[in-house]
């Protein structure tokens, strides 16, 4: 802040301009890469399909060609689903980190997955005939339950939600929900259905799930952009934010809604995909600075990029079998988490 204050008006405008140009370039490059990778993602799979065929199926769709059918009904929704899930998780992580000023905040360490699994187990046990929409909706609520529990623990604990406390609270809430769902799953014998969900990843993504992701994504992203300026100010500190006349409670509440919508949708579709929400906002911040008006859209692009890439890797590593995409993102994410943890100096 001090540096900015000493800058002349002219220099200040120049910096803003520079950030904007950089942001636009990054945004466009990212989007182009995503399109290319979607092409690869569609072409790669059990049935070999050429990139030219991929383009053909989009430009001149022929309902009689089986490869076109595979692309339209299985591979295209999967690739788009991967991009959207990654984008949603990354933005959710960015908003969490901005609101809590906590570098470790992210959906994967806040009991989100366990919450969703818990809600699924309960639904499967007590309403075995539940439709896929109801199941999605319930895991949505469950994911929210996890986040809210962790936030509440933070709100009511002495000294606020420090990074270590957040991580420990997430672990504890996760372990507890996990234990309860295991017990219920064993008693009602729905454990088998659940192992399927844990392994799930992006295998089951169809156009219906893409619709859910798009709906939640539009609402969440618009709202996130709407409060992005306030998040930037809030990330400078609660006092600064209040001093500038911001209604911090309102911003935080809207932020929580964003997090719930984005994380809930992503987890209900793709299950346990960790660390994207942790890693991407950090990388984005490193590239573009601390302005959330840029961090949020860029996180969305890079998050999508990372997950579609991870999904391709998940299919390649042990072909023809699929490795869970969550394991791939963990392999990328854990070293990053450790790097952040090593830099962490603030105490419990």
């Amino acid at each position: 802040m001090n540096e900015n204050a000493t800058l002349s008006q002219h220099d200040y405008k120049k910096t803003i301009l520079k950030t904007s140009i950089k942001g636009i370039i990054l945004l466009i490059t990212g989007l182009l890469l995503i399109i290319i990778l979607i092409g690869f993602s569609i072409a790669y799979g059990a049935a070999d399909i050429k990139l030219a065929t991929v383009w053909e199926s989009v430009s001149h769709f022929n309902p009689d060609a089986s490869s076109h059918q595979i692309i339209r009904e299985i591979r295209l929704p999967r690739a788009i689903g991967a991009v959207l899930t990654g984008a949603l998780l990354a933005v959710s992580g960015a908003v969490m980190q901005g609101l809590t000023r906590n570098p470790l905040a992210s959906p994967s360490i806040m009991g989100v997955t366990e919450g969703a699994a818990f809600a699924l187990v309960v639904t499967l046990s007590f309403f075995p005939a539940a439709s896929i929409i109801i199941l999605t909706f319930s895991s949505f609520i469950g994911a929210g339950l996890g986040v809210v529990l962790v936030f509440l623990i933070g709100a009511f604990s002495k000294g606020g939600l420090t990074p270590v406390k957040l991580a420990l609270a997430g672990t504890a809430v996760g372990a507890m929900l996990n234990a309860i769902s295991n017990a219920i799953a064993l008693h009602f014998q729905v454990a088998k259905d659940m192992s399927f969900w844990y392994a799930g990843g992006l295998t089951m993504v169809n156009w219906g799930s893409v619709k859910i992701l798009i709906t939640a994504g539009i609402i969440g992203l618009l709202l996130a952009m709407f409060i992005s300026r306030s998040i930037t100010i809030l990330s400078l500190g609660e006092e600064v934010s209040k001093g500038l006349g911001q209604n911090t409670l309102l911003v935080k509440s809207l932020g929580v809604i964003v997090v719930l919508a984005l994380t809930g949708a992503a987890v209900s579709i793709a299950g346990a995909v960790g660390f994207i929400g942790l890693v991407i906002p950090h990388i984005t911040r490193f590239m573009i600075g601390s302005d959330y008006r840029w961090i949020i859209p860029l996180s969305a692009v890079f998050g999508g990029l990372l997950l579609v890439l991870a999904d391709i890797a998940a299919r390649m590593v042990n072909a023809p079998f699929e490795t869970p995409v969550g394991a791939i993102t963990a392999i990328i994410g854990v070293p990053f988490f450790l790097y952040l943890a090593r830099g962490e100096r603030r105490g419990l």
Partner: protein
Amino acid sequence: MNVLREKLHRFILIFSLLLIMTIIVFIFSLNTGVVRIAPLDVFKTLIGMGTDRDQLVLVDFRLPRMVLSLLIGAGLATAGAILQGVAKNDLADPGILGINTGAGFAVILFIYFFQGSMNSISTLGIFLLPLFGLVGAVTAALMIYLLAWKKGIDPVRLILVGIGVNAAFGAAIIIFQLKMNPQDFMQAAVWLSGDIWGANWKMVSVLTPLILLLLPFAIYKGHILNQLNLGEQVAAGLGLKVEKERRLLLLISVGLAGFSVAAGGGIAFLGMVAPHIARRLIGPRHQLLLPLTALLGSFLVLLADTLGKNLLAPTQIPVGIIVAVFSAPYFIYLLMKAK
């Protein structure tokens, strides 16, 4: 010295009370389960006058499982107490730090590569299992120690790094688990959340000497934990080779955790909760704290096992689940209180 004697009296009182409670739960646990056996029949069977069926249920299934519960409980609880002492952090727990997950990963690897199935563990396998648990636990602990090292060990960094290592092993476990057939997958999942599984006398005979060797050694080293708690400088001033002793203690703790996990899966939170309750009861002096923690751990796991087989009968709920459901809220409460 009067204070000391008072403490000792208090210790003996609490210890005996807890012992009596453990015996009561033990007897109750012997009677209950899928097959109910009346106390008189239990007695008859134990002196060798029971029916063949009672003999089979009690001696071959129930007793080894209960003895294992006692051993695992003592092992994990003591491991946690040492870890808390060394890390100087009340929230340290082998489960949260990823040591249990590391041991679990090694065991899953072993079963995947050498045994083929969760059900058909060979005799040799039973002897090798604790070894693999130990190797996994030591690997995880080494990783945590090295990654958290930055001109010394900072307790906060240790915990954060532990959480990261936990996630890494968790992901690795998922990869191998998914390669197993569905039935093994579920069994592995249940076992990983803490289940005394494959309980038989062979397992007991392997585990008993290991745990019973490490426990007294840990208690013997208790005075060093007391000195470490005074702070590094004071401990060094008292003539303690801080880093060397700390490593030895960590090794004992990791060994206890590794052996216990190999037999009972990752029972999370027990290593955190048992030392806490014990400290409330008797205070921070480790010579008294460690034995009480061990007994309390045994009691809690036996109680959880007994609850687990009766609560939702005929469904058997794994011990780890019962322990987690009751201890996680306590952990959260402690977390909220901590500054």
